[in-house]
């Protein structure tokens, strides 16, 4: 009846997961209870859960990403402390448990932390910058989000029911085959990643279509902000490589469920083929994460330097160059396989060549600041911290791209330090910068600057204190994923690294305080004009928080830096552009099909993990019914009356008029 599921799946004899899960379950029940008592369910259902608004979906992606980031950070704290105490001793984490933690840390941070954060940004920002009212397929977008959330839920269920994968963030065969991993851990990984992978692919298709087909009048390709270009490149990569992931994991699933031999040692299987295929996805995947991050920095450097971006066209070219070349480097993850010189040389050179595209970008950002009037707001601090961090991460990357050097550092702590250096320094810093930068557009008030700066400095210093020791340990020969350590000489560096983690924790606390303080002081931090940073692209041409229809009238773009042009004209002529002709707008209706599909996907995934076949069939059937009902829907749009558009737009114009009035009286520059 319940397949492999019985009471032994609950970890009654392991205190750490048991206590964590009990606290988590109590916390979730508490939140649900609060929502019920306060009668928020109706609001949540109408305004968020069934919303097809790209901004709401973007915010929900960010929320999911932040929650999972905290979960992954908790895993990181356990790993660092375990290694610091487990020198000539067993430490406090059992080997089985420790292996689950590092596997969960990697899986969560990349697939359920960084991916939702980056996709959330693309969702929120790109349509606003393109001057359109929504993405190409709004309901599809909602389905994509809820499928991603479904995958994240499955990973977290594994904490309480059964176990998670113990084989690393990529389930390397043959270790992940049933011979060596008979439990449900790898199955949790497979189904969680498959379901959320579908969600990611949906987003990729959606964003490619949006950028290619849904730009406002006059927004030609070479007038798009760089963030839109990076969104396009990143989404193209998603469409190109996520099917490889799906196919590879499907083959591993066949191996595990039906006794196939794609990646086994015997019967003609090839474990190296798994490494080959998974990295053919895995390497482009990190560019999927980092390209939108480059887009964020491009926007921020230009805004806070008060200058157009230096070398816009070379930036676009570098983005597309990285997009293509990133698919030709994957072998550098297994230089030590034993390939001949020709293969290793080719992939070594192609990996190094990526640094050319990235270098172009770095110089462009530096030259954007050069001669500009730089404002050291919090987003700018994160961006400058990024340049420093990312250059060092990039240089160690070029070192690792040299095959003979890689043979010495392969799977060492040096590698661990390198990829944290580029992913934390690149992607995570970008996400924090972007949250500071676009928060007013989402919620109508800025985040508190002082706490934001404190958070930056603690995170920046904490990062370096954590990872510099890991570089040194790697060069001293320490390999990754050690549950306990027999070399006394590594003790000081491991303990120093824990100090860094402590500083990082202070940074995280600062960010939480920043959010609370900002909400309390929201009236003081209110963004009245819709343009808090003196921005240059179209998202600042609409009020904050952005109305659900984005723009009362579609903007008409007449050059690069669309909004900067409009603003300069208004300042030059001392008046706003004449009021346009308002027409009613059609917007897509909300739809519960996203959460409905995701609910039954979760049920199906859980059933497949535990071999509950009838429930899997039932879940699939129910999800299909949802699709059929949705396909037969007759009314899918509603009309926003002109009065509503005029009300929102007049409010913005009044604020802008007051702003012009202040300039006229010479009371001060734009804030």
């Amino acid at each position, binding site marked *: 009846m319940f397949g492999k599921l019985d009471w032994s799946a609950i970890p009654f004899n392991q205190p750490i997961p048991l206590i964590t899960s009990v606290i988590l379950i109590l916390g979730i029940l508490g939140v649900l209870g609060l929502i019920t008592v306060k009668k928020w369910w109706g609001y949540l259902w109408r305004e968020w859960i069934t919303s097809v608004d790209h901004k709401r979906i973007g915010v929900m992606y960010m929320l999911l990403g932040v929650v999972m980031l905290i979960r992954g950070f908790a895993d990181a704290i356990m790993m660092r402390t375990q290694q610091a105490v487990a020198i000539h001793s067993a430490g406090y984490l059992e080997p089985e448990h420790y292996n689950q933690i590092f596997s969960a840390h990697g899986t969560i941070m990349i697939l359920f932390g960084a991916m939702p954060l980056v996709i959330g940004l693309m969702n929120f920002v790109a349509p606003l910058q393109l001057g*359109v*009212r929504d993405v*190409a*397929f709004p309901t599809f977008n909602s389905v994509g989000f809820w499928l991603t959330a479904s995958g994240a839920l499955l990973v977290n269920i594994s904490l309480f029911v059964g176990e998670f994968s113990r084989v690393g963030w990529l389930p390397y065969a043959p270790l992940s085959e049933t011979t060596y991993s008979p439990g449900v851990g790898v199955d949790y990984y497979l189904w969680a990643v498959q379901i959320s992978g579908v969600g990611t692919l949906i987003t990729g298709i959606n964003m490619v*279509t949006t950028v*290619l*087909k*849904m*730009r*406002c*009048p*006059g*927004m*030609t390709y070479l007038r798009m902000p760089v963030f839109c270009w990076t969104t396009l490149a990143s989404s*193209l990569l998603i469409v*190109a*490589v996520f099917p*490889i992931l799906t196919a590879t994991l499907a083959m591993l699933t066949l191996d595990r469920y039906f006794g196939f031999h794609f990646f086994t040692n015997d019967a003609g299987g*090839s474990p*190296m*083929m798994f490494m*080959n*295929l998974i990295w*053919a996805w895995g390497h482009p995947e990190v560019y999927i994460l980092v390209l939108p991050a480059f887009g964020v920095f491009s926007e921020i450097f230009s805004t806070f330097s008060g200058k157009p971006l230096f070398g816009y066209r070379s930036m676009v070219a570098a983005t597309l160059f990285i997009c*293509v070349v990133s*698919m*030709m480097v*994957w*072998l550098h993850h297994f230089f030590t*396989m*034993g*390939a*001949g*010189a*020709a*293969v290793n040389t080719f992939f070594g050179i192609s990996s190094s060549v990526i640094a050319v595209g990235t270098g172009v970008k770095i110089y462009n950002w530096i030259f954007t600041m050069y001669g500009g009037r730089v404002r050291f707001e919090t987003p700018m601090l994160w961006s400058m911290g990024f340049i420093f961090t990312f250059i060092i991460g990039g240089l160690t990357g070029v070192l690792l791209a040299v095959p003979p050097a890689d043979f010495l550092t392969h799977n060492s702590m040096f590698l661990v330090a390198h990829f944290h250096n580029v992913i934390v320094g690149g992607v995570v810093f970008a996400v924090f910068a972007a949250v500071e930068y676009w928060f007013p557009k989402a919620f109508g008030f800025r985040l508190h600057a002082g706490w934001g700066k404190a958070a930056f400095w603690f995170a920046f210093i904490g990062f370096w204190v954590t990872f510099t020791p890991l570089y040194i340990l790697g060069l001293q020969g320490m390999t990754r994923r050690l549950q306990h350590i027999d070399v006394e000489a590594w003790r000081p560096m491991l303990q120093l690294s824990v100090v860094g983690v402590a500083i990082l924790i202070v940074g995280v606390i600062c960010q939480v305080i920043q959010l609370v303080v900002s909400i309390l002081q929201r009236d003081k931090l209110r963004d009245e004009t819709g343009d808090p940073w003196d921005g240059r692209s179209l998202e600042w041409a609409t009020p904050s928080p952005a109305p659900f229809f984005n723009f009362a009238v*579609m903007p008409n773009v007449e050059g690069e830096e669309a909004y900067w042009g409009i603003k300069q004209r208004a300042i030059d002529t001392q008046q706003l552009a004449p009021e346009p002709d308002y027409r009613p707008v059609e917007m897509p209706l909300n739809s519960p099909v996203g959460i409905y599909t995701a609910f039954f996907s979760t049920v199906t995934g859980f059933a497949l993990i535990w071999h509950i076949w009838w429930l899997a069939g039932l879940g699939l059937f129910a999800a299909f019914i949802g699709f059929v009902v949705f396909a037969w829907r007759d009314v*899918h*749009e509603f009309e926003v009356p002109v009065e509503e558009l005029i009300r929102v737009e007049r409010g913005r114009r009044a604020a802008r008029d007051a702003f012009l009035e202040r300039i006229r009286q010479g009371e001060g520059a734009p804030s």
Partner: protein
Amino acid sequence: MSELETDLHRHGGIGHEDHAPGDEPHESVGHWVRNYLLGLFFAVVLTICSFWAATSHMIWAPAVPVAIVVFAIAQMGVHLVFFLHITTGPDNTNNVLALAFGVLVVFLLVTGSVWIMYHLNHNMMPTDEMMQMQR
């Protein structure tokens, strides 16, 4: 998703018309019937040719795989032109670019994988030498 296509046209008013897959120019029904029948004819002929090449002895035996590859590529062309309606017209730029990108990705993955797997153990130490070192 017909409502979305109208949306795309309304908003994507840049440059000339650009067709999405499945978004066909207006032609008479007869045109499409003829088009699909012609496509079917070519596809069937090419399929029969492949079987014929493999079973008859008209082609020099070592050249049979080459012939089948040629027929397969022609088959792909027929499908692209008659069923997926890829043309060289300016309204088809996006479709052609998407196809080119897809072909590039598949090419990189397949040739890369074959090359890498061919090199699987070029520099692997022979087992007996490894045993020597362990001793």
